[in-house]
């Protein structure tokens, strides 16, 4: 099986000297092509920072990040990278431009990816995420939270990426809407053969969506486990066990 994403000895930090904060320390894991991998942990544990380092949003890092066998350096990413990797952010209220219509959002993304046939593609993207063409000329404020997140997912899919980085994609949503979005993500992965790297603080959500997961604490990966072990409550490390207990209320 080929490896979509390999991370080894990853350190990410913010600030210099006295103010330096080491957000991620010596993190390492591999995500196979077509796999769905979860990162769980409390706020400040560094899980989102890993995603931000991969996409170049966190500039100061060292270690190895390999995307589909290609090593990544620094904070600049080329167009080929963005055709391979896309990210969906937590807050659908903040991640869409308030004065751009859904059509503008998607068309702009398509032209950035240098894809032609914009008209048909926008319609197809909206269909893919279950919105339909009637949403095409709406502004974000005319959409609900769940609909906005669907637009954000459509935008991420526009360049036909292989890997989606999902940063708490449903934590700003109601549970009934969360169910819809998670179902959509499940279907999209099956249809497009996508690889997911998903960050969440919600263990049941990760358990539902992922094949394997890494538990993070204070910037370090404490444990990598399969979802079967998670379901059986078989965590090796004390910390993961506590997290599990707190999540299911046992």
């Amino acid at each position, binding site marked *: 099986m080929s490896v979509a994403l390999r991370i080894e000895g990853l350190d990410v930090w913010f600030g210099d000297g006295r103010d330096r904060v080491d957000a991620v320390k010596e993190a390492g894991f591999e995500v196979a092509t077509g796999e769905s991998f979860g990162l769980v942990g*409390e706020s400040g544990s560094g899980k989102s920072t890993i995603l931000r380092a991969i996409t170049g949003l966190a500039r100061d890092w060292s270690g190895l990040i390999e995307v589909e066998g290609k090593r990544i350096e620094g904070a600049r990413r080329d167009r080929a990278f963005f055709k391979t990797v896309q990210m969906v952010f937590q807050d659908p209220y903040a991640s869409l431009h308030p004065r751009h219509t859904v059509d503008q959002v998607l068309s702009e993304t398509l032209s950035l990816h240098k894809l032609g046939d914009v008209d048909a593609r926008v319609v197809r993207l909206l269909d893919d995420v279950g919105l339909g063409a009637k949403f095409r000329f709406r502004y974000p404020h005319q959409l609900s939270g769940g609909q906005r997140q669907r637009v954000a997912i459509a935008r991420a899919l526009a360049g036909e990426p292989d890997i989606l980085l999902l940063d708490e994609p449903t934590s700003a949503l109601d549970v009934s809407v969360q169910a819809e979005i998670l179902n959509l993500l499940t279907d999209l992965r099956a249809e497009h053969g996508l690889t997911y790297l998903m960050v969440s603080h919600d263990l049941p959500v990760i358990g539902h969506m992922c094949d394997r997961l890494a538990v993070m604490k204070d910037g370090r990966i404490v444990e990598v486990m399969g979802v079967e072990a998670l379901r059986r409550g078989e965590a090796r490390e004390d910390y993961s066990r506590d997290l599990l207990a707190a999540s299911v209320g046992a």
Partner: protein
Amino acid sequence: MTLLEVENLRVKFPTRQGVFEAVRGVSFSLGKERLGIVGESGSGKSMTGRAILRLIRPPGIVEADGIRLEGRNLLDLSETAMRKVRGQKISMVMQDPKFSLNPVMRVGDQIMEAYLLHNRSSKAEARRRAIEMLEAVSIRDPERVLRAYPHEVSGGMGQRIMIAMMLIPDPQILIADEPTSALDVSVQRQVLGIMDRLVKDRGMGLIFISHDLNLVSEFCDRVLIMYAGRVVETCAADKLHEATHPYTRGLLNSLPRLDEPRRHLEVLQRDPAWAEEGGA
């Protein structure tokens, strides 16, 4: 014993498209118990909590046949009298400590202010009480926290400071509006445990507003489930998983569960009848 009686509460907002009713005829009574109010965004659960304290600003309109506290209808009170009720009789903890604490005032001064506003006493006494209260919410180094500014404390600590501040005037009723939603799961339990202990020790009534069904079923005695501004179902918290209303069932089933893996989560099919008045 009933502490608070809410009868046919309505909250309305005039809009260009006509009057929008955020809360439509909610009635319940609260004793010395932990009452949970659950619902999704827009169900009117927060509006219910705010309306009790008359915190709905114009043009919002609060109407009710009665919001009775110790036999007095809160809706008849003057704004001055109402200010005495807030804090002293009924306190409220809001969702995010980042937005509820004054960022340019030391934590200690804020807690002491809450005490001095409702009690005639010296600053030294207020300080002593503030330290006691911070200890009661399991803050290890209260002297240091008193001197700190809100940005210097973590989210969990901020929320415990909020609870300390709300409980220092010794109210009979605490309204907690999503008090732990901004916190991590592990911290969540801790804060809830503290709140639970204080509410029990002081014989208070608690209204716990949340979107988290599991949390509410674990933490409360009784639960109201709200949908579109109405209470669609009331049940004992430990029986929440036997709830019968299709909306409650739908919410429960849409949650991913570690013990029941499945490919697709159940999607809630909303029935317009749930929102209709009189129907349930």
